[in-house]
């Protein structure tokens, strides 16, 4: 029998980046907010301190900061004809867990999506005509524009203290920034990170080929910074232990460094960790949520009533929570009907390695999670797709993040995978190799989707989320095209040997690619093709807001977190200024 708790004004499901941001905005508006986080509490001191934080075996290989898949995993298959099996060991993507969520172990690459990303379908139809988009593709507009989100991007970047160089401020293009970005209201809060040697060689090569290199925007700060919450961040030390790790230096923007110290002191906020939310509850009309049911670490079940529910967990878990709670019609790939789980997308990644002779010392260990130099010439619709037969694109960059001993062993093609010859090659190439990343978009199609697994259950007896995904032909074509451009840049960088190949199918979950899983609770203007409206409010249950990368109708070329942060502030602003004054649907159709 569940113990019933006192009603809260708002309940946060998940206290990661989105939960912390909404918690702060709603308590500031005077609401009594309770945060329910399934993972453990953790803080810069003592949890992220050296030397234990630099334990590569524990954090990179055994993935200590990730969701415990002995309790809660995800099943996977490539196609609807296959039987999905549970992922027993995270490899392809790494869902985080714990206070602060994935924003503890992220790299901090903080981009804005472009306006052409937000109005993708319209853009493609206008520029290339009706027949350009493949029949299977279910790409659509977001219902918001870059103009709508500008001040929320701005606010998020100033919360984090992002280090970068603006390319387009108040309508004026600035040399050295990203010339393709939409106009922004002001410069980044802090100047760009120092440019590593390999990145400098990339910049020169890209420049010589007529491209437009710029420093990657970074939430690892280039200098001390005090954010609008009054919290001071330190300078990144380029330690090379960033993604998959917490930052010991107070230099990585995460809820622990930019928000939680303020939020946790607020008397209107209550945090409970190790609380596994099982479902969102409703009244008889099924149109109004009454709260959540959760189980604590001692196995006790609680009912937490609340007037407003913020579902801000990891994208995949947002989808699963709606499916477990019965909110919205689940997507059916056979009919194309239904919305929850629809338009699951990913990111189309590939890499190019540039092998130098031994006079060129790269020092790969001296890196940060988001340093380096990139080009956006092949991002989104920044180039003419007319003859290529695909939509979308990728950024290319020398954005190496580490030279850690277990993970970083660049060897040229033809090198044996083990043995004396392999060891010799690792010694020969370790300090003399640059790696370029090709970070590409992912279109939505009818076949890729999320639903509840019919067989496998979690530790609480609830069905796991099932992912059905393979790379759409469109994205493989895109990867082939942009990876060739990266190979050309690699050659212009003066390496002795340049190796790399585009992303090829089938999608495998046994090789790390990216944790940019998107879609499943997509936003939009039509209830028939979206789960939430443009303010991220559930069409079906108006006091439930779903926020995260699960809102993306398809994934863009850039990293998603900047857009997740902007959407979170956009939704929070709407809740405070409109919803709280008159609770109910914000969009009527």
């Amino acid at each position, binding site marked *: 029998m569940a113990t019933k708790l006192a009603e809260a004004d708002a309940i946060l499901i998940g206290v990661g980046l989105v939960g912390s941001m909404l918690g702060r905005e709603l308590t500031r508006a005077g609401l009594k907010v309770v945060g329910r986080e399934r993972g453990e509490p953790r803080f*810069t*001191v*003592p949890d992220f*301190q*050296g*030397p234990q934080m630099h334990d590569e*075996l524990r954090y*990179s290989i055994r993935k200590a900061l990730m969701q415990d898949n002995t309790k809660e995993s995800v099943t996977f298959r490539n196609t609807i004809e296959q039987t999905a099996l549970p992922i027993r*060991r995270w*490899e392809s993507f790494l869902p985080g867990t714990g206070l602060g969520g994935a924003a503890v172990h*992220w*790299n901090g*690459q903080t981009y804005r999506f472009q306006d052409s990303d937000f109005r993708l379908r319209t853009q493609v139809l206008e520029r290339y005509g009706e027949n350009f988009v493949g029949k299977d593709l279910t790409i659509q507009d977001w219902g918001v524009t870059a103009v709508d989100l500008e001040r929320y991007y701005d606010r998020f970047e100033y919360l984090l203290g992002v280090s970068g160089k603006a390319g387009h401020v108040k309508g004026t293009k600035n040399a050295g920034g990203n010339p393709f970005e939409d106009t922004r209201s002001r410069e980044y809060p802090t100047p760009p990170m120092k440019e590593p040697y390999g990145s400098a060689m990339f910049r020169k090569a890209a420049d010589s080929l007529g491209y437009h290199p710029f420093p990657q925007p970074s939430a690892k700060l280039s*200098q001390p910074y005090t954010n609008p919450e009054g*919290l*001071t961040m*330190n*300078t990144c030390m380029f330690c090379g232990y960033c*993604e*998959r790790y917490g930052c*010991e*230096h107070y230099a990585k923007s995460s809820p622990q460094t930019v928000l939680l110290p303020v939020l946790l002191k607020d008397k209107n906020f209550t945090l409970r960790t190790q609380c596994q939310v099982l479902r969102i509850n409703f009244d008889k009309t099924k149109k109004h949520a009454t709260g959540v049911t959760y189980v604590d670490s001692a196995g006790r079940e609680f009912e937490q009533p609340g007037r407003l529910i913020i579902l801000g967990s990891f994208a995949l878990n947002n989808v699963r929570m709606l499916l477990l709670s019965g909110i919205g019609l689940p997507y059916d790939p056979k009919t194309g009907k239904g919305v929850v789980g629809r338009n699951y997308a990913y990111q189309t*990644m*590939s*890499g190019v*390695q540039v092998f130098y002779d031994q006079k060129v010392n790269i020092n790969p260990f001296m890196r940060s*999670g*988001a340093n380096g130099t990139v080009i956006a010439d092949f991002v989104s619709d920044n180039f003419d797709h007319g003859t290529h037969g695909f939509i979308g694109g990728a950024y290319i960059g020398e*954005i*190496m*993040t580490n030279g850690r001993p*277990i*993970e*970083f*062993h*660049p*060897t*040229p*093609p033809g*090198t*044996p*995978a*083990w*043995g004396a010859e*392999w060891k010799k090659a690792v*010694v020969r190439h370790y*300090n003399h190799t640059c*790696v370029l*990343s*090709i*970070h590409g978009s992912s279109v939505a199609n009818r076949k890729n989707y999320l639903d509840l697994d019919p067989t496998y259950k979690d530790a609480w007896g609830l069905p796991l989320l099932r992912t059905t995904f393979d790379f759409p032909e469109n994205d493989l074509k895109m990867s082939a095209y942009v990876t060739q451009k990266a190979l050309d840049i690699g050659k212009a960088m003066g390496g002795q040997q340049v*190796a790399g*190949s*585009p*992303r090829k199918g089938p999608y495998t979950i046994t*090789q*790390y690619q*990216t*944790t*940019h899983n998107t879609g499943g609770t997509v936003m939009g203007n039509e209830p028939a093709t979206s789960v939430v409206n443009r303010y991220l409010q559930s069409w079906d249950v108006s006091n439930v807001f779903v926020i995260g990368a699960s809102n993306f109708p398809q994934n863009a070329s850039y990293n998603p977190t900047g857009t997740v942060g902007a959407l979170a502030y956009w939704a929070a602003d709407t809740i405070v200024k409109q919803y709280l004054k008159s609770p109910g649907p914000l969009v009527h159709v």
Partner: protein
Amino acid sequence: MKYISLCFVAGVMIAITAHAQTTTSSSAAGNTENTGPLGAQIATRGGANGVAACASCHGAQGEGNAAAGFPRLAGQSEDYLARQMKNFTNGSRNNAVMSPIAKALTLQQTNAVSAYYGSLSAPFPTPSQLADAKVLQRGRQLATVGDNGKRIQGCANCHGPGGIGKPPTFPYLAGQHAAYLKAALAEWKNNVRTTDPSRQMNIIASLLNNEDTNAVTAYYAAQAAPQPDVQRANVPAGSTSRPVSPNSQTGSKSDGGASATQGVGTEQGAPVTGGNQGPGGGGASGSSDRSKP
């Protein structure tokens, strides 16, 4: 940077004791044979250009002077010492005694005397009077994990576990005299020392109150100073030699025991190489094509 030779004899490693004459320095390459004597000469007798003998303040063996707050130099990273001399010269660090001395020395002299002190091993006398246990406990906390309420990270993040330093950049703190460490923290706090481009030290020092400063400096002063960096051997890339720790010189460990090798670079056959494993990564694809043996 700096390497010493290691000989393997019947499985017993004998590290050639790092001696001034055998130490080479990248910056003093070509003067190798003169480095030792010149460094020792300046340290013990001073320089011809009117520079006083370092030993007159820093002790005959570089052990420093606890009462006067002259720092211990023995075994401090050569690179760090040379850098500080340059900092005294360019004014990013200021000291009434040291600044004129640093300015008077030539680059060759600076490098030689830095190498000399980097190679020295001075005794570490247990401090006669240990601070209160509570003070040391607070010092230990700041040194090892920091203080989240004050947003102070643990010193060990940069200065190494136990404060043994992370050469060549970060100096050791273990065994350093409390009076010197306090003076150094005051310089950081007052921004008269601007040698840290990240400004981490200026910020950390400004977050420490007097009690914290007393505690952390007392804690480090009570820890045994580390061996000279050159005895914590590095081996050149590609060498078949294996690193030997100072401790292993005392026992007769087998070759294998002293040099456990790294884990392998694959998981379930999937390559994890490539350098970009995180969001924004994906560099592994190049290596996925490589042929199997």
